[in-house]
C-alpha cells in the first residue's frame, strides 16, 4: 500500500477516533514522524481535512504498527515479515529467502507440503509434458480394463509402450 502523502510504502497505520468516527491513515514512517501523529500531541497538517483538524478536541487512539517493526526484513525490497502477514503478498522473489524459516509453516498450511516437485527451468518441455501424457494414458487403460473394453485397452497399452522409452525416468507414478 502506498503512503497517502508521498507515494512511498505505507508502513504505519494510524487509527484516529474523531467524534466517535474512525479515520484510518496509511503513511510511510517518515511522513508519520514528520506529521507528528505519533507524538503525544497531535498537530494536524495544514492540508488535511476537517476531521483531522478537529483532532485537538477529540479522543485519539493510535496504533503504531510497523513503525517499530522488528520482524525480519527482505534486503532487496525492504518488505518486513509483518507487512507480508498483513497483506498476504510477498514483495519480491528474494522475500522467499528472507522469510524462509517463517514460510515453511505457512506453506505447509496452504499446500500440505513445503518443497517443490515438478518442472524446473532447465527441463526441456517434452519431458514434463510426456510425463503427464503417460499418467493420463495409464488412467484410461485402468478404466478400459475396468469396463472390460479390451480392444481399447490393447491400443492404450501400445501407446504407453511407444511413449515410455522416450520419457526415461519420468514415467507415471
Amino acid at each position, binding site marked *: 500500500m502506498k503512503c497517502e502523502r508521498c*507515494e512511498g*510504502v505505507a508502513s504505519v497505520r494510524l487509527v484516529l477516533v474523531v467524534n466517535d468516527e474512525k479515520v484510518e491513515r496509511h503513511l510511510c514512517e517518515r511522513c508519520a514522524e514528520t506529521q507528528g501523529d505519533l507524538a503525544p500531541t497531535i498537530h494536524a497538517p495544514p492540508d488535511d481535512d476537517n476531521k483531522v483538524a478537529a483532532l485537538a478536541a477529540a479522543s485519539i487512539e493510535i496504533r503504531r504498527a510497523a513503525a517499530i517493526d522488528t520482524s525480519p526484513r527482505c534486503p*532487496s*525490497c525492504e*518488505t518486513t515479515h509483518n507487512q507480508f502477514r498483513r497483506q*498476504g*503478498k*510477498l*514483495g*519480491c*522473489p*528474494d522475500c*522467499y*529467502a528472507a522469510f*524462509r524459516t517463517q*514460510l515453511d509453516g*505457512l*506453506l505447509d498450511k*496452504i*499446500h*500440505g*507440503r*513445503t*518443497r*517443490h*516437485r*515438478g*518442472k*524446473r*527451468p532447465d527441463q*526441456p*518441455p517434452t519431458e*514434463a*509434458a510426456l*510425463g*503427464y*501424457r*503417460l*499418467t*493420463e494414458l495409464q*488412467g484410461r487403460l485402468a*478404466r478400459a480394463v475396468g469396463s472390460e473394453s479390451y480392444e481399447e485397452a490393447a491400443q492404450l497399452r501400445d501407446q504407453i509402450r511407444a511413449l515410455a522409452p522416450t520419457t526415461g525416468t519420468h514415467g*507415471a*507414478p
Partner: protein
Amino acid sequence: MELHSLSSTTGEWLRGEGPESDIVISTRIRLARNLRGRPFPPRAGPEARGLAEAFVRERVRGAAPFAEGVCLELARSSELDRKLLVERHLISRELANAEGQRSVAFTRDESTSVMINEEDHLRIQVIRSGMQLAACWEAADRVEHTLGSRLDFAFDDAFGYLTSCPTNVGTGMRVSVMLHLPALVLTKQMERVFEAMSKISLAVRGLFGEGTSASGDFYQISNQVTLGFDEAQLLGRLNDVIPKVIEHERHTRDALLADNRVKLEDRVWRALGVLRTARRISSEETMETLSSVRLGVNLGLLPGLSISTINTLFILTQPAHLQKLEGRPLATPERNERRARFIREQLGAP
C-alpha cells in the same frame, strides 16, 4: 487487430468440440511466472512496474506464438475494451481493474494468452475446447519454455517458481475445467459436489473464477494446491475426478428424462421460446434460459440447434460485447433490447 472485430466472433475454445463437450466447455491451464530480482507487481512502484511491463512485453511479442497475435497495453485501453477482454476470458477482472502499466498478449485464435503485470509478472494461459488436459498442458509447457528462454524466471530449488502470493508458489499452475452442470443444479446436488471437491483440495468456482457466481450453471473445478506435487500429479487429480462429475451429471440428466420427460421438455422449450420472442432480456435471464436450451440441445430435445451457436451466445450477449457491437455505450434498458434483438437474429427468429 481492432477489438471491434472480436465482438461478433468467439475464441476457438467455444466451438463446442473436443472430448465430453456436452458437459465440459473448456480446459484451461494458467502458469504464474515472475522475473528474478524485480519486485512483484503489487509491490512495485510506478517506475519499476513500467520497466518490468515493457521488458516482458517486448520479449513476449517477439516469441513464436505471439508474434502474429495481438498485444494490448491496458493502461491505454478503454474501460469497455477491458471489459470485453474479461468477458472473453482473455484477462482477469483484477487485471482489468488494476492501475498502472499492464498488458495482455494473445494469439489470434485466443487459445493462448499472457497477462503481464497482474498479480505476477506473467500469467501464461492456454485454453482448449472440451476436456483436454494433456493437450492443454503440452501447449502451456511449450509456451512457458519459449518464454523462459527469453526471460529469467524467479525459481528456487526448494520453493519452485516464486509468486507474489504463496498460494501459487511451486508449479505456479492452476488447472481449471469449466463444466456445464444444469441437471445437478436442478436437482440441488451441487452442495455435495462442493464438499467432495474440497476434501481432495479442489476448488469449485463460478464462470469467471474466484469470487464469481455460477451463472448459467457453469462451474470451474480447479486445483487448490500448487506446491509439493508435480504438474502430472496435479493434472492427474483432475483427470481422476472430472469424469466422475461428468458421469454424475449424465446420470442425473437421464434420470430427469426418465422420470419427468414432459416437465424437462416444457422447461427447455419455454426457455427457447423466451429467447426467440423476447423484446427485452436481462443478462441473468439470458444465462438462465441459454443454460436450459443448452441442456435441451445436448439431450436431443431441440433439433436443429447447434451447441456452438449456444456457446457463442453466452459470450456475445454480455454487456461489453453488445456495446462494442453497437459501437456506443448502452444503458441497461437499451442493452436489454439490443440483447433480445441479437439473440433473435442469431436464432433466426422474427
